[in-house]
């Protein structure tokens, strides 16, 4: 499953989407809203997406990862809207017969998300300022 949603994410629910009886490993990545940007206190974040293209790109990355690594199913769900400190912004789960492929595939998938999926993060600082990450 490859989705963009405003709903809170559950790692367990995403893990359950990819499990099969033939897989001995599920590796998941849980991206968390951090409380600072280079030490500057962050109050909360807002994520914006070009949702239709983001879901298409997530699916393309999923297919690419399945070609590249000996894995089974992969799921990636990105949350958008306002997120508070400690909440999950993205969950990626990869199932595989053996753990090494699952670890590598999960890391690779996240790296691809960082460059190819049209989602944007705006940080709202504790001092009242805000900025779009990477856009000035």
């Amino acid at each position, binding site marked *: 499953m490859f989705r963009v949603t405003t709903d809170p994410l559950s790692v367990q629910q995403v893990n359950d989407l990819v499990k099969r009886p033939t897989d001995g490993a599920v590796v998941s990545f849980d991206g968390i*809203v951090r409380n600072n940007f280079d030490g500057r206190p962050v109050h909360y974040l807002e994520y*914006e997406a070009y949702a239709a293209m983001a879901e298409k790109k997530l699916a393309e990355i999923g297919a690419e990862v399945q070609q590249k690594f000996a894995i089974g199913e992969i799921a990636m769900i990105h949350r958008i809207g306002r997120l508070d400190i400690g909440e999950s912004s993205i969950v990626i789960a990869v199932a595989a017969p053996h753990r090494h492929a699952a670890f590598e595939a999960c890391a690779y998938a996240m790296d691809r998300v960082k460059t190819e999926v049209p989602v944007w993060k705006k940080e709202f600082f504790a001092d009242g300022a805000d900025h779009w990450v990477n*856009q*000035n």
Partner: protein
Amino acid sequence: MQITVKLFALMREKAGTDTIPLDVPAGAAVTQALATLVCQYPMLEPYLANTRLSLHMDFVDPETTLAEGDELVLIPPVSGGA
């Protein structure tokens, strides 16, 4: 012909809108549409160098030819994930 430009994130805020209808010559390339766009919205010009372009939910080159009714989406540097 008429196309639509879609904006997100900082460029959306700078332009004050997320949708800009644009008249371009038939057979125009994306680069021509962008030149027309910055005439009307000069505040977007500083960001175009770092902006990727999308048609039909795929990244495209600036030389790509546009068709009537196309939705040209400007994709600033992405910052998804954590």
